[in-house]
């Protein structure tokens, strides 16, 4: 926890400098090789980026949601693949453990997560259970002091790097809904756990996903987060709610980068004898982007501050994630348009961002799921 302007400014300045000097120059290489160079990974770990949200008593920084959002505004100023590498460890992969884990579970894993020694991954999605997460089929059957896991998890971010997985599995076969689901911590290397082939994706090259397959994978019964079965879905939803504000902040950061690049190009590119930034139709694209970006930034900060105050932010988190990710898509589209032919060419990097940001509207709850969350909360409040 920082909550002091001086330390927070120093932290943001450090992250901004690292992004500017180390990450931005590596963007084309990461896209070309689909891999973040080992030296950069080591620097990210040494800086403490993996421990942003882990409490100080476990070796992390214990950032508040607002502070996390401010750091993500800075981290968003480069390819989202860099953020993705530590994003699951500071976010969805570790938060279940943090929110609902037992003291033994926390002290076993959190210190190693904070240093980046262990990378955490979040395994909820399945081939047949995406937006309808509560219908998941991965089973966990009690057998003595163990649970036996069977099933397949799909598109699992950082699975190839992960040291631990937060896995949602059905412990009660009679309950086909949310109540039958439990959250487990499963260590990589557990017999019966194997990884599928790395997925080929549209964008965010350098961020790896793959299937995680459980085939009679035996884990100690004490691996259930918090030790109580049947609470997994609730844990997952709490984790995702926080994750939505984090993703909204990244969307704001990336959109800021794109708009800055587009504005610079518009002031340098000359057509019809003048810089294209002087043309009103280009100005309209710049102005719309600026206003939407400002709205998303304010919304994200407000949701984060409310969460820090202990308010229920289910609606606000979904509003911020939905609006910021859709805004980011529009800003990326306009950036390509302002760059014109150059925007379509790989050399300028704009088309890469355009592909990268498409994911924001899909993962951690599609725009349509956010709409449902928002509307259901509205209806529930009046009925």
């Amino acid at each position: 926890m920082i909550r002091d302007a001086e330390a927070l400014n120093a932290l943001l300045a450090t992250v901004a400098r690292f992004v500017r000097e180390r990450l931005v120059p590596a963007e084309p290489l990461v896209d070309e090789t689909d891999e973040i160079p080992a030296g950069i990974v080591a620097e990210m770990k040494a800086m403490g980026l993996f421990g942003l949200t882990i409490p100080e008593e476990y070796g992390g920084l214990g950032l508040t949601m607002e502070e996390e959002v401010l750091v993500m505004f800075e981290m968003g100023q480069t390819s989202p693949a860099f953020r993705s590498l530590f994003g699951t460890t500071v976010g969805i992969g570790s938060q279940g453990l943090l929110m609902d884990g037992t003291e033994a579970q926390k002290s076993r894993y959190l210190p190693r997560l904070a240093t980046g020694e262990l990378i955490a991954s979040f395994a909820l999605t399945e081939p047949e259970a995406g937006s309808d997460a509560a219908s998941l089929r991965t089973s966990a059957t009690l057998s003595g002091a163990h649970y036996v896991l069977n099933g397949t998890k799909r598109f699992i971010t950082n699975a190839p790097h992960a040291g631990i997985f937060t896995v949602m599995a059905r412990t009660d076969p009679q309950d086909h809904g949310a109540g039958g689901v439990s959250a487990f911590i499963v260590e990589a290397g557990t017999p019966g756990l194997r990884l599928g082939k790395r997925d080929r994706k549209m964008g965010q090259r350098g961020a790896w996903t793959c299937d995680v397959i459980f085939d009679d994978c035996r884990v100690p019964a004490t691996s259930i987060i918090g030790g109580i079965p049947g609470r997994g879905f609730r844990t997952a939803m709490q984790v995702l709610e926080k994750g939505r504000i984090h993703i909204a902040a990244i969307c704001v950061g990336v959109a800021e980068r794109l708009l800055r690049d587009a504005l610079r190009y518009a002031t340098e590119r000359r057509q019809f004898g003048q810089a294209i930034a002087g043309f009103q139709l280009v100005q309209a694209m710049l102005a719309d982007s600026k206003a939407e970006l400002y709205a998303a930034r304010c919304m994200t900060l407000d949701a984060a501050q409310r969460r820090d105050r202990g308010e229920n932010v289910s609606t606000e988190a979904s509003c911020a994630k939905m609006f910021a990710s859709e805004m980011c898509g529009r800003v990326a589209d306009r950036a390509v348009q302002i760059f014109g032919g150059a925007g379509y060419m790989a050399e300028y990097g704009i088309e890469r961002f355009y592909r990268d940001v498409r994911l924001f509207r899909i993962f951690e709850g599609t725009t349509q799921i956010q709409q449902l969350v928002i509307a259901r909360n509205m209806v529930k409040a009046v009925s």
Partner: protein
Amino acid sequence: MKKILVGVKRVVDYNVRVRVKPDGTGVALDGVKMSVNPFDEIALEEALRIRERGQANEVVVASIGPADSQQQLRTALAMGADRALHVQTDSTIEPLGVARAFLKLVERENPFLVIFGKQAIDDDNGQTGQLLASLWDRPQVTFASRLELGEATARVTREVDAGLETLDVDLPAVITADLRLNEPRYVKLPDIMKAKKKPLETLSLADLGADTREHLRIVRVGPPSQRTKGVMVKTTEELVEALKKKGLF
């Protein structure tokens, strides 16, 4: 106790486009991002490496400036300095005054090495190190790009117009750091928190008894003149002709 004293100045961040105040009395600083002078960061990095090699026990950073200079001292502590001294003043102190104040700090702390950046990127005076060495009556090596410490001497390579020059000096000495001396480390984020607990002592110029009378008067501050548009020539002959016309060839 083998101590190194490092000077840290609060300056406008190097990424900021500096604007001159309309009345020509200085540059606009309101709401402008301030940072540690980049050459001072290099100076500090060198001191930390010397300590990490076991050739020093303590790195003390010092800054002379307004209350907000403590932000830069905290950054220096987060980078790894052990202790900070803040000589607080709201007046602008010219290089001779800064050197005199540092002499008092040197007398207090007894360092075997003082490292400054070769210049601060705000006024680019590049005088404090030289002035301090003279007042302290100790050797100086400016524009260092390599520094090797012996028991009682230092071998320093400095960047000069003709290339590189290597000097051996007796310690204690004053060294000023050039760009290629090292590449400063990134601050580790948890160290930013730990820096809050490191000692930072605030002093006044009166406490030190340093003479900081002004000898310089700023007449006017103005932006550099705009560069005029260049001329494109097609051949070497044309270039020679154009240069001749300007009397440059």
